[in-house]
């Protein structure tokens, strides 16, 4: 097998055994990117020389020793650009490492390559990037999902062994599902966001994209833990997330939420997820029907809370300390107004305005406060369900990858793509997506994702449940046929 096609664990084993050097791995990956990325556009930039300098010093005896990891272009890596796929940050260069990068380096990994995304992580298709959209490796006329579409596509196309993304309303799980790989959103507070460009601070969480469940556990081991520089990160002990992998599922109870198997769910997605549920039964898990009655309100709550927080977070882009600055402003208001007009793309502007509106005087109670109360009900739904079950099993996305351009001018329709992933962030619980089959559309095979949602800080058990399915099926071995 060619080096870039290996899993993270396999390439690390070869590095550790000194069968291959970190520099050789990097050069092989760089060649693969050069070969296939013109079709995918998963990367916005990469700095081979900087990575090779890290490779020289890499300690291959560390858990991720010598392994290159791709980074969503919204996480700061010292000396590299960090554009958030926005013109407002074109030319910006980070002069510090985000905590997750510092931790990856401490585990021996080499950050390599900056992944494309929807501008400021706002979107579900990666079409909102100011620097061109990413294509789905399974069918390049289709979108890879979003907002971390670049991170998902490069892992699926064997242009990365693993990638980091961020998930505010599904931005790791939905693109992982649409690209046929593993994507994990940890519990809110599990991973530090210091150095992540903030979108919606009460929802954002960083997590891995990988080819296997074991690889996701390995990356989570490296990045998890309390960080004094992110006061929302929690002081929970970090277990070895690989410890439960391989244990059987006897006694494990999985809940099927009836609100997630609804009209509008693609019949091929419905069939694949139901087959996965049957498979879990054959593995010894007990399946229980559960109800999350406030599911239908999640998208509405999300688009109030997330845009409100975004409108505040994005106020920092004022053309003074970093980023784009409008030329020849006639005064302060003209300076702000035109700097932001020229720097932000349409979806970001739309969300800033929506968020500003729901926080504005006279509307705060009706929109923002009410949304926060409904958020309480959504959280309560999950706590009640988790009294009966260990994890929830459902589709990641109601559909497979759609055609590029299909809904770029219908924001509300685009928002509904996140209908099954958003509630997780509102509740703060962990969730992951694993491949569970393919749909046949116009003669093409398109991946389907199975979503598993767990109790706070129970990522280990979630990974155990995912691993049992993965190891008894072949879906994760399929790769798109790129030249």
């Amino acid at each position, binding site marked *: 097998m060619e080096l870039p096609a290996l899993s993270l664990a396999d390439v690390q084993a070869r590095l550790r055994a000194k069968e291959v050097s970190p520099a050789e791995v990097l050069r092989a990956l760089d060649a693969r990117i050069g070969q296939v990325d013109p079709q995918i556009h998963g990367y916005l930039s990469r700095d081979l020389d900087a990575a090779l300098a890290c490779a020289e010093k890499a300690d291959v005896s560390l858990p991720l020793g010598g392994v290159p990891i791709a980074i969503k272009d919204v996480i700061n890596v010292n000396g590299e650009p960090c554009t958030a796929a926005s013109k407002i940050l074109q030319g*910006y260069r980070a*002069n510090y490492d985000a905590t997750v990068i510092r931790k990856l380096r401490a585990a021996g990994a080499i950050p390599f390559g900056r992944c494309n995304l929807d501008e400021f992580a706002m979107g579900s298709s990666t079409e909102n990037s100011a620097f061109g959209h990413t294509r789905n490796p399974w069918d390049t006329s289709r979108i890879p999902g979003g907002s971390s579409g670049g991170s998902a596509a490069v892992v699926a196309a064997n242009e990365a062994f693993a990638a980091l993304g961020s998930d505010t309303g599904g931005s790791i799980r939905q693109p992982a599902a649409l690209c046929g790989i593993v994507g994990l959103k940890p519990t809110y507070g599990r991973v530090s966001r210091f150095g992540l460009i903030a979108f919606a601070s009460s929802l954002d969480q960083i997590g891995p994209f990988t080819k296997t469940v074991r690889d996701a556990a390995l990356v989570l081991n490296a990045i998890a833990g309390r960080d004094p520089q992110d006061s929302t990160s929690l002081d929970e002990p970090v277990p070895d997330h690989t410890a439960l992998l391989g244990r059987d599922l006897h006694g494990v109870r999985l809940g099927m939420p009836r609100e997630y198997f609804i009209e509008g769910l693609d019949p091929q997605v419905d069939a694949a997820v139901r087959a996965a549920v049957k498979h879990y039964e054959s593995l010894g898990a007990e399946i229980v029907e559960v109800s999350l009655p406030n599911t239908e309100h999640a998208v509405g709550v999300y688009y109030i809370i997330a845009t409100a927080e975004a409108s505040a977070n994005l106020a920092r882009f004022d053309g003074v300390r970093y980023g784009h600055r409008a030329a020849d402003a006639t005064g302060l208001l003209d300076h702000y107004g035109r700097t932001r007009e020229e720097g932000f793309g349409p979806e970001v502007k739309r969300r800033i305005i929506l968020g500003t509106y729901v926080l504005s005087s006279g509307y705060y109670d009706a929109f923002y406060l009410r949304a926060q109360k409904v958020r309480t009900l959504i959280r309560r739904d999950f706590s009640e369900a988790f009294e009966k079950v260990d994890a929830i099993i459902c589709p990641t996305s109601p559909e497979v990858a759609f055609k590029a351009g299909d809904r770029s001018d219908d924001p509300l329709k685009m928002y509904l793509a996140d209908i099954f992933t958003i509630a997780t962030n509102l509740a703060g619980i962990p969730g992951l997506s694993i491949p569970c089959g393919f749909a046949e559309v116009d003669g093409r095979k398109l991946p389907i994702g199975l979503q598993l949602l767990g109790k706070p800080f129970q990522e280990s058990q979630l990974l155990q449940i995912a691993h049992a399915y993965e190891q008894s099926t072949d879906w994760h071995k399929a790769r798109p046929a790129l030249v």
Partner: protein
Amino acid sequence: MSAKFDVRYTAQLARLHLSEEEIAKFQTQISQILAYVEKLEQVDVTGIEPTAHANAIFNVFREDTPRDWFTAEEALSNAPRSANQLFIVPKVIE
């Protein structure tokens, strides 16, 4: 409620200039989104506390001790305009 949504006024609050074309488009699109989120009015939230954060943690304190971080040069390295170790801002007071 969304009948009162005025994109021009809200954009002004957000310190964001918009083109006439954007104003027309956003007025329609955001009104549609607001009509959708107004479904939340039907939810009974009597006696329900709001959730601001997924984890119920409140103030987190640390000792206020100095430590090394950016030098002035590093802090200014991405500034569109700077001079004499300062950010240059537009004239604020006439």
